């Protein structure tokens, strides 16, 4: 550079650029829009724009009877339908003062834990995809998830939108050939996690892209109502399966994997370890489950007494709860969904500011949101 060029560079005016990311963008995992202001590659400001997948689920629930609403819950977080079913039927059961028979509860926990593994596989696979490890890690995860979906198909005939659970239990008992298939899966899954971790957990590229990125403190996370693996990655031992055991979780032995710094790496690591714990929980369920009925008699047109219920449970993404208000009729008077994906986005702006464009997709992926649940 000669002198005149240097003078020119000093007086050159640069402006921040605002661009739209989404709603149609592969790394938003659905239809989500971010208005991002960049200075070069650096993120200066972020404005999330919601609502592209808003279907009015809460309003639709007011027009359907309690049993029909189960099919709506499948379509909230569509990679963990079983857990949505469970949260909804537990609220209904509290409203009606019903308890599912023990075998039904065990089947629900088995389904929910398998679903948690499937959901974490999706989260991890897409996180690696966002990091630029194109294709292979995602396909490995999808391959294992496929085995879980096969198990769900045996349970209820559906793979994604299961609607397996009912108020008072589950829709049907597991078929005979389900148990050997489940046993084979449980034997294979830890080996897969080992293999995956061997490839990734100490991979230098993964470490340098995720360590210290998007640090979140425990105080900030709690104050912003962030729950699930993102909260546990900050080191807070808060899991509703432990804190408020529902169904048969009080009989299960498992530990809560906790992160230290709350960065992207810790979120990845917590999910990997949670999959191992879930395998353990399903094994314990298999050992403990006894023959018996899977469902109490609850009329299809279920009329709970006047009242309200809110039963929060630990979904794969955090605290999920249905706040149901009954006026004694056949439909909920109000069905409010407390969705973890939506509320975990509270600090999105703070998590992204100051990072580079390439980190933005990674940080966003590490929160693990599902647009069906964000927009409802």
């Amino acid at each position, binding site marked *: 550079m000669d002198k005149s060029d240097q003078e020119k560079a000093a007086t050159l005016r640069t402006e921040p650029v605002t661009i739209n990311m989404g709603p149609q963008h592969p790394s938003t995992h659905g239809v989500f829009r971010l208005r991002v202001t960049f200075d070069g590659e650096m993120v200066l400001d972020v404005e999330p724009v919601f609502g592209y997948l808003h279907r009015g689920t809460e309003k639709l629930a007011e027009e359907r009877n309690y049993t029909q609403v189960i099919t709506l819950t499948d379509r909230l977080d569509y990679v963990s339908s079983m857990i949505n079913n469970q949260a909804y039927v537990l609220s209904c059961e509290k409203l009606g003062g019903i308890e599912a028979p023990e075998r039904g509860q065990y089947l629900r926990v088995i389904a929910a834990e398998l679903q948690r593994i499937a959901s974490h596989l999706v989260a991890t696979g897409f996180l690696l995809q966002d990091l630029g490890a194109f294709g292979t890690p995602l396909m490995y995860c999808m391959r294992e998830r496929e085995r879980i979906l096969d198990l769900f198909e045996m349970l209820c005939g559906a793979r994604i939108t299961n609607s397996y659970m009912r108020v008072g239990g589950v829709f049907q008992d597991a078929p005979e050939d389900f148990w050997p298939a489940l046993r084979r899966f449980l034997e294979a899954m830890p080996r897969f996690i080992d293999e995956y971790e061997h490839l990734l957990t100490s991979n230098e590229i993964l470490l340098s892209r995720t360590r210290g990125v998007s640090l979140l403190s425990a105080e900030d996370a709690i104050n*912003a*109502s*962030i729950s699930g693996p993102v909260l546990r990655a900050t080191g807070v031992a808060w899991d509703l399966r432990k804190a408020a055991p529902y169904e048969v979780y009080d009989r299960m032995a498992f530990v809560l994997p906790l992160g230290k710094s709350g960065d992207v790496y810790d979120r990845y690591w917590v999910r990997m370890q949670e999959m191992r714990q879930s395998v353990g929980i399903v094994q314990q369920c298999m050992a403990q489950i006894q023959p018996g009925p899977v469902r109490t008699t609850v009329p299809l047109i279920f009329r709970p007494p006047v009242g309200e219920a*809110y039963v929060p449970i630990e979904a794969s993404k955090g605290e999920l709860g249905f706040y149901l208000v009954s006026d004694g009729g056949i439909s909920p008077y109000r069905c*409010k969904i407390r969705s973890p994906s939506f*509320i975990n986005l509270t600090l999105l702006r703070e998590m992204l500011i100051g990072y580079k464009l390439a980190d933005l997709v990674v940080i966003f992926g590490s929160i693990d949101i599902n647009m069906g649940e964000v927009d409802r």
Partner: protein
Amino acid sequence: MTRLVAGGDLARRLQDAFPGTVESWDDSQVWVQPDRLVEVCGWLRQTPDLAFDFLSSISAVDYIEHFELVYHLTSIRHNHRAVVKARLYGRERPAAPSVVSIWRGATLQEREVWDLMGVTFEGHPNLKRIMLWEGFPGHPHRKDHLGG
């Protein structure tokens, strides 16, 4: 196991701290004056043996003659829960103070309540529609939306 703080206990302590704020209570919940919400919530979060540090959810229910705001509070420190409610009368412009200054977790939830139920939160830093677009007529979760 998460313990539910009894409505009666909470009501008594709130009465002592802020006379005249409690409207009524039952076993599981307390109704407070809506204009005192920020004081009450701030106190619930600060008091060491209550320490409601985690705002689980904010819901709004349309009971035709009034709107009800429902705050599900959780204390991660003590592993207990409580339900605090506030009734808002008048359908034209129901309003309540924003609790964003106490729990940032209210930011998106209050926007959602405003968008879908039409309750204004005074003091919210960015109260605009979230699920629907600006200019959408009405608030669809109200029972009288499109004639009910």
